[in-house]
């Protein structure tokens, strides 16, 4: 599937959900975002807020164990997106409703020169975690898990601010970002499941690279029997774990 096709499927997916009558909101990145934050007292600055949010301090947890979640950073080189657009499917955050929410986040990033290293760096969510006060991300491959502190929620933090903060921090960190679009799905398990199925199609694009990686992982597994599988009494068990390892690596990539 080409990038154009994937992006058009993404836009169609959100349009379809909206047509079904689901809550759908579009925000725009504010060029004067830092000024607009002054009234709220929320801090957004690269590498300034390295903090862990403990369970007892947590106001809302997005994703996490037992919740449905996804995160995907999709870098492109062509100008196929609307810069600064933040689409939210589902309700805004509300401290008075559920504390643990199903959540999905897709970042489409147009970069000037895309390399494997850029791809890895774009997927490093510490950029967000360390740049937003009262917020911490826990990295789980392909899933999303973050904690928003009670204090941050008291400052009326919402997904519009979150989307703006992500764009601000990414653009501050990567000089080669030309444009960026953000998609959130909040508290809609059915839509998240459908989106996971949809986004899994793009992994085919990376399948060749992934196969090579899996082969190299298999070679890198240490073996107390020096790969003398014929004499190894744990041969069958070992295969089960190789399958498990391969499955996790597949999820990771």
């Amino acid at each position: 599937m080409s990038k154009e096709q994937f992006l058009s499927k993404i836009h169609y997916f959100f349009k379809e959900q909206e047509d079904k009558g689901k809550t759908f909101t579009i925000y725009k990145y504010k060029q004067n975002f830092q000024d607009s934050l002054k009234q709220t007292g929320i801090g957004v600055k690269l590498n300034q807020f390295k903090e862990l949010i403990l369970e007892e301090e947590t106001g809302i947890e997005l994703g996490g164990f037992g919740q449905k979640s996804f995160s995907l950073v999709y870098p492109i080189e062509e100008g196929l997106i609307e810069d600064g657009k933040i689409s939210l499917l589902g309700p805004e955050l509300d401290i008075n409703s559920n504390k643990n929410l199903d959540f999905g986040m897709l970042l489409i990033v147009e970069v000037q020169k895309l390399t494997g290293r850029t791809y890895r760096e774009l997927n490093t969510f510490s950029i967000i975690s360390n740049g937003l006060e009262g917020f911490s991300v826990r990295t789980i491959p392909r899933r999303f898990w973050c904690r928003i502190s009670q204090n941050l929620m008291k400052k009326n933090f919402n997904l519009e601010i979150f989307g703006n903060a992500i764009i601000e921090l990414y653009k501050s960190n990567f000089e080669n970002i030309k444009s960026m679009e953000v998609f959130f799905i909040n508290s809609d398990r059915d839509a998240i499941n459908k989106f996971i199925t949809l986004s899994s199609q793009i992994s085919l694009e990376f399948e060749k690279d992934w196969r090579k990686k899996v082969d190299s992982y298999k070679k890198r597994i240490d073996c107390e029997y020096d790969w003398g599988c014929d004499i190894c009494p744990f041969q069958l068990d070992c295969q089960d774990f190789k399958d498990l390892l391969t499955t996790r690596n597949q999820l990771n990539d």
Partner: protein
Amino acid sequence: MINVKEKKIIMVTTYVIAVVGKGGVGKSIITALLAKAISENNIYKLLLIDADPAYPHLSVMLNLKPKKSVESIRSEIIQNTLQKQKDVKEIAENIDFYVYNAIEESKSFSLLSIGQPEDSGCFCPSNTLLKKVIESISRDFDIVLIDCEAGLEQISRKVIENIDYLLIITDISLRSVDTAVTISKMGKKFTKSEKSGVIINKSEGNISNIIEKIKSHGLDLIGVIPRDPKISELDLNAIPMTSIGQNNRSYQKIKEILNTILLIN
């Protein structure tokens, strides 16, 4: 002395420090004091890994008790996988959550315990699996400090492959220095670490022969910590090392050592 706070070193990637040495030289105490020093100014996100299966003392010294050990998670995964109690995909999807949830967190630092092996047999791929999870989780932290057992092979096989700095602890016995030399050689074999430094702990009297021996093997001596009755007292009464006073001279030495380690990063 350059103060870490003034210098405000920005970590671009996670920096992994392994604390190693012969049994009884004070690895866990030094790890705990380093943890206190690193977390003092809230500049870094710190993950501590207690990787000594025989003597997991770090939790007592830090007053943090991990909910579960990695070995107990490994044991559950082995059972679930081999007895087909859970779908492979379900385990693969959730294993990172299991390990993350085993971390005990505080505002200053987080602690993950490797624990004692609970199963016999060869499960090397499960080691690789958990190692990959630990490496993935480590990326959320600026510094990972590992309190190791004496051997390095176990660390590279079970805990983490990429070690940036090998911090070798010795006391003033020649056998301990011999172990330090061996560990330094093993470090080159089992880890990708290019940097290392030696601390002489529990120093007293004339230690010139010890210093000479360390230097003759080309090891980099980065600090000497005197035998300290205050540390012995805390250790004896199982009082967390983090309660040590700011002006304690051993702690001051630890802060100097930390600056050395981080500034050569």
